[in-house]
C-alpha cells in the first residue's frame, strides 16, 4: 500500500515538472480565464502584442486592423478576441468583421489576427488598448500584456460620383393626357344599317310619289331588252356607224318581241312582223328604221348617223317619257 502511494506521488511530480506546450494541458478553469485567448509564450520569452492599422482611413472604405503576437509557442491554438462585441470597438467602427481571420507562422512563432473594420466617424480615431493574457509555461503562471492604443486620422467618405439614369429618350417625357377609350356600342352596329335602309326605302317611296313618270320609267326599264337597248344607245356618241344602230335595233326586236335572227333585210323584217301580227304602224316604223339604217350602211358613201331617232322610237314604243 505504501509503495503504491509513493508511486502515485512520483507520477504526479513527474507530470507537473514537464513544461506545458498545449492549452489542453491547462486546467479547465485556467482555460476560461478572462482575456486569455489560448496563447502560450515561448520558453524564457514574453509575448508582445501590437496593433497595426492602415494610415489612410475613410468612413466609406474598409481597413485592415491587425493584432500581431510574437513569441507564441502554440501558434495554431490562439483564438481571436471578439472585437465585434466590445463596446469600445463598436463605438469606433461602423463595421467589424467577425470572426477575425487568423494567420500564423510556427517557424517564427508569430500570430496575426486580421480584422476588416470601417471607421464610424471622420476625425481622430483611437484603437482602444487591448488586454491580452497569456501563459508562461516555465514560470507556470499567467502574464498580462497590453496592445497599446493607436491613433489615426479618418477622412470623411467621398461620395461616389452619381451615375446618370439611362433609358430611351421617349421614356423621360411624360405623355400629355388623352381621352378615354371610345368604344362603339354594339347596338350602334345594328342601328346604322336599319336607319340607312329605312332612309333608302323612304327616298324610293318619296321618289315614286313625287315623280310618277320616273316610277313608270323604272318599271319599264326592268324589262331587260329595253334596258339594254337604251343603255347601249345612251353610251353612243352623237354620230355612229349605221351598222351599230342596226345591230342594237335588231337585238331589241329579237329579245323584246321574238323576231327571228334571220330577219335582216327590210322585207324579211316586214314579213316576220306580219307573221307575228305586229300592229301595222309599228311594223312600218320598224321597217322604215331598218331601211334607213341599211341605206346609210350600204350606200355609195358610208354615213354616220345619230342614235337619237332610234332611242326616241324605242321610248315611244315603250311609252317612256323622253
Amino acid at each position, binding site marked *: 500500500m505504501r509503495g503504491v502511494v509513493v508511486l502515485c506521488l512520483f507520477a504526479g511530480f513527474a507530470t507537473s515538472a514537464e513544461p506545458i506546450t498545449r492549452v489542453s494541458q491547462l486546467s479547465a478553469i485556467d482555460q476560461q480565464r478572462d482575456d486569455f485567448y489560448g496563447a502560450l509564450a515561448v520558453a524564457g520569452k514574453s509575448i508582445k502584442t501590437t496593433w497595426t492599422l492602415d494610415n489612410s482611413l475613410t468612413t466609406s472604405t474598409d481597413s485592415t486592423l491587425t493584432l500581431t503576437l510574437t513569441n507564441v509557442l502554440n501558434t495554431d491554438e490562439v483564438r481571436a478576441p471578439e472585437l465585434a462585441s466590445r463596446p469600445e470597438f463598436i463605438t469606433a467602427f461602423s463595421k467589424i468583421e467577425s470572426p477575425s481571420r487568423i494567420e500564423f507562422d510556427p517557424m517564427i512563432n508569430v500570430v496575426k489576427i486580421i480584422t476588416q473594420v470601417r471607421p464610424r466617424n471622420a476625425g481622430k480615431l483611437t484603437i482602444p488598448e487591448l488586454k491580452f493574457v497569456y501563459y508562461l509555461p516555465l514560470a507556470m503562471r499567467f502574464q498580462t500584456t497590453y496592445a497599446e492604443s493607436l491613433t489615426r486620422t479618418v477622412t470623411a467618405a467621398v461620395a461616389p460620383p*452619381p*451615375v*446618370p*439614369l*439611362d*433609358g*430611351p429618350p*421617349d*421614356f*423621360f*417625357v*411624360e*405623355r*400629355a*393626357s*388623352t*381621352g*378615354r*377609350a*371610345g*368604344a*362603339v356600342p354594339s347596338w*350602334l*352596329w345594328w342601328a*346604322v*344599317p336599319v336607319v*340607312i*335602309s329605312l*332612309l*333608302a326605302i323612304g*327616298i*324610293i317611296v318619296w*321618289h*315614286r310619289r313625287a315623280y310618277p313618270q*320616273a*316610277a313608270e*320609267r*323604272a318599271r319599264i*326599264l*326592268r324589262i331587260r331588252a329595253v*334596258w339594254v337597248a337604251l*343603255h347601249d344607245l345612251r353610251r353612243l356618241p352623237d354620230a355612229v356607224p349605221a351598222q351599230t344602230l342596226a345591230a342594237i335595233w335588231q337585238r331589241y326586236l329579237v329579245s323584246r318581241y321574238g323576231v327571228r335572227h334571220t330577219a335582216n333585210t327590210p322585207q324579211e323584217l316586214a314579213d316576220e312582223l306580219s307573221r307575228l301580227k305586229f300592229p301595222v304602224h309599228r311594223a312600218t316604223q320598224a321597217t322604215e328604221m331598218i331601211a334607213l339604217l341599211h341605206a346609210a350602211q350600204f350606200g355609195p358613201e358610208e354615213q354616220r348617223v345619230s342614235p337619237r331617232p332610234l332611242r326616241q322610237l324605242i321610248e315611244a314604243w315603250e311609252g317612256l317619257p323622253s
Partner: protein
Amino acid sequence: MTTLLVLLLTCLPSDDFAHGVQQRIDREAARRAFADAAQGYAEQWKNGDTSASNFSNWGRAAALAGQRPQAVYAFRLGLDQYPTDVELKRDLVQLRELIGYPRDVNPQPLQAWRSHVSEADRFVLFVFSMVLLLGGCCWFCTTRRAVAWWLIAPGLLGLLTVLLTTLMIQAELRQPVVSVLSAPVTLRTGNGPSYPPRLSTTLQPGTEVRLLHERGDWAQVELDPGVVGWLPKAAMFQGVD
C-alpha cells in the same frame, strides 16, 4: 384645407415623374422618384383612369425605375384597351429591346389586325359602305342607271372588308393570354427542374410568354411561335396589388 390641397397636389404622380426627370443625373434618386410615379399611375388606373396616357406614363415610369415586368404589364394593359395606339406600341418595342430576348427568339407579336384596325375605323368603314350600297341601290331602283353599280360595288367591297377584319380580330382574341415574367428563369423542356433547358440562355424579367397549360406549380408557355417550354408559375408577374 389648404394644407390638405397642397398635400394632394404634391402626391400627384406627374410631380414624381418630373422630379425623376430632374434627378436624372443621379440614378438612385431618379429611380426612387420614378418608382413613386409608377405607383401613383397604378393607383390612378385602379381609381378608374384608363386613358392611354396613364398607361404610357405608368409603363415609362416603371421602366425607368427598373421595374421592367411592371412596365411591360402596364403597356400590355394599355394596348389591350387601345390596340392601335402608336405611342404605346412604340414604348413596348423600345422596352423589349432593353429586356433582351434570347438569340433567334422574337417577342410575342402584337395582335396584328387588332393593333392596326380600330373598332372606330371599322365602324366608319361600315357606315360609309352602307351609305354607298343603299344609296346605289336607291339610285338604281329609281333610275335603272348602270352607273349606280359604281356605288353598289364599293359598298359591297367595304362591307366584305369589315366582315373579314372582324373575323380576323375575333380569331386573335381567342389566342391564349400573354403573361410577363417577373424573375430570371430557365425555360425547360418539362415541368420540373430536372428537365434540360429548352434554350441556352435564361429568360429575363419582362419577357412576354403565352400561357398554354398549367400543371402543378409549373406552366407550359410559348415564347415565340414554336418555342414552347415549361417554367415555374412563381416566375410569372402577378400584376399590381
